[in-house]
């Protein structure tokens, strides 16, 4: 079961990656400014998914939309990992009281869901891809701190760390050579799940007009456009949604599959 999940997840993630990569070099038509087609055309050759309300090819826009989705995912997961993992490892080595203070701070930080933080930041700094990426990344930092701290605590309690310490290895060396490699799989699972969350958050923000700005296509803003024409062409509201769902499903399955591979005991439960 977990192998199947992992494979299906990999296929879906690869599909999104290929869409994004291909669209960098080639799309059937210009996704941003080519408005030469009849508006709101139903799916028919050469517009396999039809055209939007400005007469742009929907399939081309869907391909380019994969770029926004991946870029936001990679950057926000990157922010969360780079800030959260070192902070978590350091927290694991702090005295109990200081560690407790950090954990309570992450509790408070977790009361700011990604979307709320992004809306708050958009209200202050203005909406856009950068604000969205930073907000989604920052909102995920507490989870990475928790995962890294929990992982680091169990590694630090092991005999080989004791051995390394008695040989005179510094904290930094131990963190680099023992803690990091051992918690990397845990972090990988968290990254995959966070990636799925980031795609959902970016889509919601773009739908609200606070994420990727026009004319750059994003799946969320395509759904917003579709809503204004749902009486005449309801299919417009279908394609971007399927794209989001497949991408999120891919990263969720990848995360689940990875976790099951790492911990066979969980296979039965999850």
């Amino acid at each position, binding site marked *: 079961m977990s192998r199947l999940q992992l494979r299906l997840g990999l296929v879906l993630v690869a599909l999104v990656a290929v869409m994004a990569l291909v669209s960098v070099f080639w799309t059937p038509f210009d996704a941003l400014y080519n408005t030469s087609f009849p508006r709101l055309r139903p799916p028919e050759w050469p517009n396999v998914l039809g055209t939007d309300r400005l007469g742009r090819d929907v399939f081309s826009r869907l391909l380019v939309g994969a770029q926004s989705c991946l870029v936001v995912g990679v950057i926000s997961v990157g922010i969360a990992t780079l800030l959260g993992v070192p902070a978590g490892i350091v927290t694991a080595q702090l005295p109990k009281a200081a560690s407790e203070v950090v954990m309570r701070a992450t509790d*408070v930080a977790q*009361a700011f869901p990604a979307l709320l933080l992004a809306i708050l930041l958009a209200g202050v700094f203005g909406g856009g891809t950068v604000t969205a990426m930073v907000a989604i990344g920052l909102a995920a930092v507490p989870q990475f701190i928790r995962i890294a701290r929990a992982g680091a605590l169990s590694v630090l309690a092991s005999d080989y760390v004791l051995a390394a310490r008695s040989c005179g290895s510094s904290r930094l060396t131990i963190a680099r050579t023992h803690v990091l490699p051992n918690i990397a799989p845990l972090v990988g699972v968290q990254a995959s799940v966070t990636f799925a969350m980031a795609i959902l958050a970016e889509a919601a923000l773009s739908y609200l007009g606070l994420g990727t700005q026009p004319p750059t296509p994003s799946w969320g803003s395509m759904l917003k456009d579709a809503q204004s024409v749902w009486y005449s062409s309801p299919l417009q509201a279908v394609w971007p949604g399927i794209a989001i769902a497949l991408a999120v499903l891919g990263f969720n399955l990848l995360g689940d599959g990875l976790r099951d591979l790492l911990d066979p005991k969980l296979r039965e439960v999850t």
Partner: protein
Amino acid sequence: MIATVARRLGVFALSLVGASLAIFIICQALPGDPARILLGDGASAEQIAAKAHELGTDRPAIVRYLTWVAGMLRGDFGTSYASGVAVSGLIGPTLPVTGALAGFSLLVSVVIALPFGMLAALRRRRWEGVAVSAVAQVGMAIPAFWAGILLSILFGVVWRVLPPNGYIPLTTDPIGWARSLALPVLALALVQAAVLVRYVRSAFIDVLSEDYYRTARAVGWSRWGALLRHGVRNASLSLVTVLGLQLASILVGAIVIEQVFVLPGLGSLLLTYVRQKDVMVIQGVVMLLVLAVLLINALVEVSYVLIDPRLRTAER
């Protein structure tokens, strides 16, 4: 028991201070002087200074923070810079809308998730169980606002059985109110139920391997009977935690769903003033939402003690 509640209240109060400080500091980063922005480029230095004094923005940050917090404790969230209206007056009418949307969504998602999650646990090796898990996995990947758009198109535009959007207050027309909330609640609840089903399933799989379940089966309880009699209370400990997290994500999801269905809730208010960059309204509404999330977390922790008597005796 009392010690637990007291300690939890202390943590809750500290969290509130931390959260309010974070929100206030972020909002201070807004570029530009509100007085200057309000009056425009043509205003003289005296006019701007007078306006700043009127708004209170010429006072030190610490004074403004304390004034804001002290006001909130009295239910006064300050005054909108742009419209000059009391923020609490703006928030008040939106609360029943968002409250009803979030509350009913949570209720409906539990009503859907509990039976399906238990089915998925009991029949986890049969096709029914696998099918429920697979549907839940797909459901988790669907953005609630897309579900909302699709439901709105199907029920509101194609079949015309429910209004595709808009809101009717309860006091105006109770049936119209229920009809206007049906689709938004369903959109939020279906997606949340998908997440919940997975937790219900794993909580009940744990129960299935417990001794008390085996004993109950041995003395003649049916599988469902044993689960309902002994499983629900034991599983509810982990489920309450999830429900707390769920309510937080439902509140945030409601912000987006309100846009899909044009509901005059807290989310719509927030987004209107985000576009106008009106800090007082933004920080008030965000604080209220964060307060709700923190309060739910605190209540969840206190409820452990109520659900599980073992935790009560362990404290003594």
